């Protein structure tokens, strides 16, 4: 994953728990140093090590860490660094999810080794969707769950995930989120 992800994990921990906890997490992870470069591609294992160490040090399940990170990603990292792109992707919760593939497509054009996930939105009614998340990576569905929460805040929407189910795939993961969304 790109350095911006690891930088965001670091920023989230420092913001919510302080520098000292981050130092403990870094030591626990075995990652030699935390001077991540935004546009450099790092091994996925490094990111997983940071998340695993965060879970251990903070005594929280890794899924919870990823959820909090997903929300932080939308509300801080993406908003602070790429707000124009975020705004161009959609002005409402469902519209954003419908266009998020285009956003990832454009990034794929430029960044080598970028392997974005794929999102399909099935509209059930005006305020009800099924969001299919498919990725070549495993274990990141809680991160998407956090992104949903972050987008709800960004678009000032009342969002409820009523059901989450996994679909078996040969590689990576495919998760379906059943979502009710009321714009505030």
């Amino acid at each position: 994953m790109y350095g911006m992800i690891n930088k965001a994990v670091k920023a989230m921990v420092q913001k919510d728990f302080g520098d000292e906890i981050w130092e403990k997490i870094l030591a626990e992870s075995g990652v030699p140093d935390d001077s991540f470069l935004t546009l450099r591609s790092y091994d996925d294992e490094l990111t997983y090590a940071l998340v695993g160490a965060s879970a251990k040090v903070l005594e929280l399940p890794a899924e919870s860490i990823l959820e909090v990170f997903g929300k932080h990603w939308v509300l801080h990292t993406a908003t602070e660094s790429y707000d124009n792109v975020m705004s161009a992707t959609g002005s409402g919760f469902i519209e954003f999810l419908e266009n998020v593939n285009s956003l990832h497509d454009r990034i794929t054009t430029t960044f080598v080794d970028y392997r974005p996930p794929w999102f399909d939105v099935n509209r059930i009614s005006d305020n009800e969707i099924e969001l299919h998340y498919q990725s070549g990576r495993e274990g990141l569905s809680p991160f998407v769950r956090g992104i949903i929460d972050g987008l709800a805040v960004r678009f000032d929407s009342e969002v409820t995930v009523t059901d989450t189910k996994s679909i078996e795939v040969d590689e990576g993961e495919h998760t379906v989120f059943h979502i009710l969304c009321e714009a505030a």
Partner: protein
Amino acid sequence: VTMGNWLWSQQFFPMSLVLADDGEILQASDGLKNKFSGDIIGRNILSVFDVARPRVNADNLDLASRVHSLFLMNATDNSIAVRSQLCRGDYEGEERFFLMGAPWLSWIKQNAPTIDLDAADFPVHDAQLEQEFLMNSQQDMLGDLEELTDNLRDAKDQAQQADKAKSDFVSHVSHEMRTPLNGVVSAVNLLGKESLPTECQQLVEIASASSAALMDVINEVLDFSRISSGSMSFENVDFSPTRLVKDAVLMLSSSAQNKGIGLQVNYNDDIPPALVGDAEKIRQVLVNLIGNAIKYSDDGEVTVKATSSAAADDSVSIRFEVADQGRGIGEEDQKWVFEPFWCKGAGLGVNESSTGLGLSICSQIIDKMNGSMGLSSKVGEGSVFWFELQLPVGEAQQEDLEVASATKQEDKNFAGRILLVDDNAVNLTLGKLLIERHGLEVSCASDGAEAVEKATSGNYDLVFMDIKMPVMDGVEAIHPATVTHCGTDGERVGSG
């Protein structure tokens, strides 16, 4: 689209395809056809290209659902990669799909850099070349940054090594200074107990006060060095918090009296009789705060207060406060008061000095005990320094702890024979004098071998032995085999 239009459009979209609904390639732009060694017309797009984006299903291509999508795909034989947009329109009278695009530059650069591309492959509206320029600049910057990061990391490592070497040196030198200074302090103290002419007595008092002050400085430097290197150890013992406060106050009562400053103690009744923690370190902090309060007050009172409140899991939160009516500390200086070497704004008098380490050591000790420390102060009105610790409630009885503490302070006289073993002649001389003052008979030995020989022939009640010695060290001397030869069945107790 007529054939004429199709050819004309290739100026703007040099890598283009016309597809049937099932993905069969009906037509390809010349720019694209030229990249393949064989004919691609009539083949299915998925047999010619791997599609990276969007996600497509080989069993159900469903191109209609992807109209307007960006298609990123590379030839299965890596002869070209294409970045294009899917459109729907008329081609020679039939509704067809069009993939209109240009080479996918970033993929080619990464995976097939030998593919020949020229400017005509990138029409003006396609910003990939400009983007490529930016990405190359970005890549250069990334390289520069990585080099810079490596240099910074090396510099940081070197600085840390130098810092450690400096700390080790300071620690070593302080330790080396403390040993002879201990001799000076003890000798001067013993001298002070002799009957001397008044003038000599005054000189001895000056020597005693100066050597004690120097010992304080060295101890502070040693403590700071230990705590900075993480080698300061902490113990958990039962102690009486009220006794601890009384002891700390007692230690400084004569200093307060000499300056005409009142020293009050105040604690609430519900403080548990025993807590578990490092009593020595807590006392050290409290003594430092009371000492500062006296040092920076010209008159008035110093009040030492201890309060407690229940915390979770059989623990209490105990708070110690030392309030004075002294000079106080300005608001700006309060931010730096716990920083090492801070002396500015302390309002030191003409004959007063400070290493500026005391409060820094205190705050780090409290921090290591997971406590908190702070102050409130107003210039001209005084200061209140406080610290809070969460400590488990102990099981010992108040009376036991009081007795233990009182016994520790009592000056007792004993009877018996002691063997004192040390290779340092000064320590032997002073140790012998100090012990003899308690009514004991003392013999000396300067190494382990001599100690074993004397212990074998003499009848000693207690042996005080140094560890590091020439000929035979203390550890070997008390080895069970050696002790057996000595014919003693005494208990071995650790020594420093």
